[in-house]
């Protein structure tokens, strides 16, 4: 363990601010704009990357947030959102008091109530549902680290029904696909050695627009060092603008390209023969299988010239094993997404890039402590969302949101009668919004725990206002998928505003009301932190002063020791190019290319993505970030726009195949997108009038995603299967 004590000693000597931790927010002396302020090391929650932050506090207010240079992953850097966290904690639109619905659902009429009444209301509802239908009839929709306390509460209560969009609307397919291949899911932050990469391949992954601070630092570093960049995207993304090869692929044909790359790598002996021989199984099946998938075959499908397929495969082969095939994050596109992730994992294996410098590295367990609690009660019924049953490879820890909504609508396999949503806006994070609203109408009760009055809260019966990340303690961030694993704290910089409460407090109070205190055997944040940190031989005072402490890692195959366990914990103990699990399930053991429908004439495929200054729909109301990007635009190929008499800046509405019409949005007529698709940034067009800066700014892609293609293996919702057309009528 490498600990630098020097700075800690300096801080400790600084005086009583640190010692006063029990009394309230801690801190150390710092500067802002030439004034002396108090600095608190914590981690950011403007997205889920949780970069190290220093909150600067003056007169009890956060006045500025900078990066924490002592954070081992992010090294003092913060993205636009991280810097703008100051405008979340100070947002005048924040939820400040518990609110109970008085009008109809959706009408947004509430009365403010006290916490005692609010928690009593929720406990009564949960107990009533449990008595009438069973504990499993309560479902939980969490997002983010802070949901952990509520997850404990729900398990202790006896329901297995927890489902988060991070799985079925985001990373699920890749976690399953990589686990099938290498024996372990990737996790987040994904363990990519971009710093050492000599070639980087992005398949629909739009690094630069999708910003995670440390990943961007590493990506930029690699580019500056001359790493080759191959970008596969129907859109000329930020990354494409930096690429050596931009391959504007026909949407939905990525697996064909991946198979052709395998064909070239194997056909030209560019794969890592020793690595495959030593670590992989199923190579001969793969060789036989990909033989027919020539670049010429793939050209016809993908519309990428065969010559470029060969060139890019050779670039990867030359750079191996230092090649990062970025696994992507939001990868629920077409319903065969687990298979596409498998193809990317197999390509990674052929290049010998898993467990090797410049490729994907291995996690290192640090053996943190845990809270000792009684075992959770065993639910009497299977999960309602199909995780583990209908969707055999879905994570039972993360669940299938759309399966849960389906169960709520149908009452099958059993009724779902109460929902608790934490830290997210289900109406924007899960597709088929109308179905979600319909499902809510079937509930006996719906409770939202949140910081801002997001859209879903209009439909809630009870709203519990949470303190922001700058005002609360959360369970420490334990990161094993870093080359040097670390533990980082989130601690309050200021007291909670208004009548808001930290999530841990809400969950613990609920445990008392539900008679579940045994699962919360700690007094408060310090006590909880000590339980987690206990076995790590870390001084918690030091941890809180510095924000994070790192440990030695064993990221590469040659570093591994017996305590790290099996190198490839698959059924065969080897990298499974040919998957035994998939074979048993009757699925394709090696990925197959499936032809998906193209848009009919006059229609275009809707694709969507992110902007670096926004996190989904969560930050559109932030004063600074709204100033940087107040609304989204619709990217349309220039010649398509011209043929419609449209040019950049024109305001239009978009209609999808089911007749759903968007709010007005500005056209961006550009060469930077294929003719068969349009693109918009996700998160805009929100319909909560209480979000004064975000209300009806731009258009919502999610409203137009009324159809999904569900991945039969893990339940993920393929969302790039919607076609839209532009309403020619230009709105002012």
């Amino acid at each position, binding site marked *: 363990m490498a600990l630098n004590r020097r700075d800690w000693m300096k801080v400790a000597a600084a005086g009583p601010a640190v010692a006063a931790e029990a009394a309230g927010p801690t801190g150390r002396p710092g*500067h*802002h*704009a*030439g004034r002396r302020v108090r600095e608190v090391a914590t981690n950011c929650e403007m997205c889920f990357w949780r970069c190290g932050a220093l909150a600067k506090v003056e007169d009890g207010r956060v006045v*500025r*947030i*900078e*990066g924490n240079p002592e954070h081992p992953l992010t090294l*003092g*850097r*913060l*993205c*636009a*959102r*991280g*810097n*703008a966290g*100051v*405008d979340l904690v100070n947002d005048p639109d924040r939820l400040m008091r518990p609110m109970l619905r008085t009008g109809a659902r959706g009408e947004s009429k509430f009365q403010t109530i006290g916490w005692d009444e609010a928690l009593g209301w929720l406990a009564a509802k949960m107990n009533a549902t449990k008595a009438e239908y069973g504990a499993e009839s309560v479902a939980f929709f969490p997002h983010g680290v802070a949901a952990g306390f509520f997850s404990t509460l729900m398990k202790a209560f006896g329901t297995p029904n927890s489902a988060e969009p991070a799985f079925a609307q985001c990373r699920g397919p890749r976690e399953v696909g990589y686990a099938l291949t290498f024996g372990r899911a990737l996790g987040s932050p994904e363990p990519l050695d971009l710093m050492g990469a000599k070639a980087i391949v992005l398949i629909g992954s739009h*690094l*630069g*627009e999708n*910003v995670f*601070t440390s990943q*961007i*630092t590493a*990506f*930029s*570093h690699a*580019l*500056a060092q*001359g790493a080759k960049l191959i970008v596969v995207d129907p859109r*000329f993304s*930020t*990354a*494409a*603008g*930096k690429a050596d090869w*931009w391959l*504007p692929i026909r949407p939905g044909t990525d697996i064909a390209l991946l198979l052709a790359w395998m064909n070239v790598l194997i056909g030209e002996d560019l794969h890592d023969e020793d690595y495959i021989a030593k670590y992989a199984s199923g190579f001969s099946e793969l060789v036989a299988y990909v033989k027919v998938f020539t670049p010429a075959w793939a050209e016809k499908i993908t519309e990428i010239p065969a010559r470029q397929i060969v060139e890019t495969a050779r670039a990867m082969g030359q750079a191996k094993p230092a090649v990062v095939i970025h696994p992507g994050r939001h990868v629920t596109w077409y319903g065969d997404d687990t298979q596409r992730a498998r193809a990317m994992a197999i390509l990674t294996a052929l290049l010998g890039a898993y467990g090797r410098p410049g490729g994907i590295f291995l996690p290192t367990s640090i053996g943190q402590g845990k809270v000792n609690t009684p075992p959770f009660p065993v639910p009497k019924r299977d999960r309602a969302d199909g995780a583990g049953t209908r969707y055999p490879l879905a994570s039972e820890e993360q669940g299938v949101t759309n399966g849960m909504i389906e169960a709520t609508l149908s009452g099958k396999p059993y009724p779902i009668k109460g929902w608790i949503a934490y830290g997210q806006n289900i109406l924007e994070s899960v597709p088929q919004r109308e179905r979600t609203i319909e499902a809510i109408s079937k509930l006996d009760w719906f409770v939202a725990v949140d910081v801002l009055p997001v859209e879903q809260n209009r439909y809630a019966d009870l709203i519990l206002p949470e303190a922001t990340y700058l005002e609360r303690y959360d369970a420490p961030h334990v990161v094993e998928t870093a080359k040097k694993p670390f533990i980082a704290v989130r601690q309050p910089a200021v007291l909670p505003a208004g009548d808001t409460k930290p999530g841990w407090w809400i969950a613990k109070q609920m445990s008392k009301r539900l008679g579940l205190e045994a699962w919360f055997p700690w007094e408060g944040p310090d006590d909880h932190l000590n339980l987690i940190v206990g076995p790590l031989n870390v001084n918690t005072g030091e941890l809180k002063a510095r924000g994070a402490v790192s440990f030695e890692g064993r990221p590469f195959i040659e570093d591994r020791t017996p305590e790290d366990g099996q190198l490839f914990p698959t059924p065969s103990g080897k990298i499974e190019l040919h998957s035994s699990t998939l074979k048993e399930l009757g699925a394709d053991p090696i990925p197959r290319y499936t032809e998906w429908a193209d848009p009919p004439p006059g229609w275009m495929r809707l694709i969507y993505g992110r902007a*670096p*200054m926004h996190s989904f729909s969560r930050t559109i109301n932030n*004063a*600074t*970030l709204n*100033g*940087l990007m107040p609304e989204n635009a619709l990217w349309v*190929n220039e010649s398509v726009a011209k043929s419609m008499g449209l040019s950049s800046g024109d305001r239009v509405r978009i209609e999808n195949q089911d007749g759903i019409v968007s709010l007005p949005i500005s056209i961006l007529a*550009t*060469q*930077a997108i*294929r003719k068969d698709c349009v693109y918009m940034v996700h998160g805009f067009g929100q319909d909560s009038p209480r979000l004064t800066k975000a209300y009806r700014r731009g258009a919502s892609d999610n409203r137009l995603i009324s159809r999904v293609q569900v991945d039969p293996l893990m339940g993920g919702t393929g969302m790039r299967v919607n076609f839209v057309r532009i309403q020619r009528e230009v709105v002012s």
Partner: protein
Amino acid sequence: MPRYAMVTDLTRCVGCEACTAACNTEWSVAPGFARTRVKHTGALGQFPNLRSAFYVAQCNHCDEAPCVKPCPSGATFIAPDGIVKINKELCIGCGYCVEACPYDARHIDPGTQRADKCDFCASRLETGLQPACVTTCTGNAKFFGDLEDSSGGIFRMVYGQGAKRIQSAQVAVGPNVYYKGRKHEPELVAEVFPPRPPRMPVSGQWWGKVLLPVAGLMVGATFAGQAIAFFRQLGSGEERFEE
């Protein structure tokens, strides 16, 4: 005395605007304005042969800063370390400097009615910190330092690695913000975002020759208050500009 300069590596820049957010929150820049913004060239060329680049725009702290001369109150000046600064006490908000800047790096803060722009985070430098945009840059694309320090990174990038100023044949005023890139980026940026010729007030020469020395005298003689009031009055009138 140092001579401060900044280098932005456009290959590393992904246009995330962490710099803008850091600057805006560090200096409470007026909503709707910014001291630094990242511009995009757009996708140039014909599909699929396209090129693009980001341009991090800010005050260039020019050796021959065109914003200094038209300033009627002497508020804008070049400090000995090369930083172009605004003495907010003297500024009358006339906006001549805004018109003059070839890089459009200045604005009038509608709240304070004073000119505002990047000053390389001068007060942070005094406490040993780097400018806020440099510290936070996710791509590690921004570098700041002393151009006189031959052992420093800025010196190496400017004199050894070909970091370039964004100038044109028409407008060459010695900017001290440099740009580099592994590929086409600096050239593309110079092409798409060339500096514009400074727009000077038609009456500027008259002010420059007659009023500034007087203003200097008045300020020196503790009549600063009256002088500023006088110039504010002047500055509030309409003025014509020419390039």
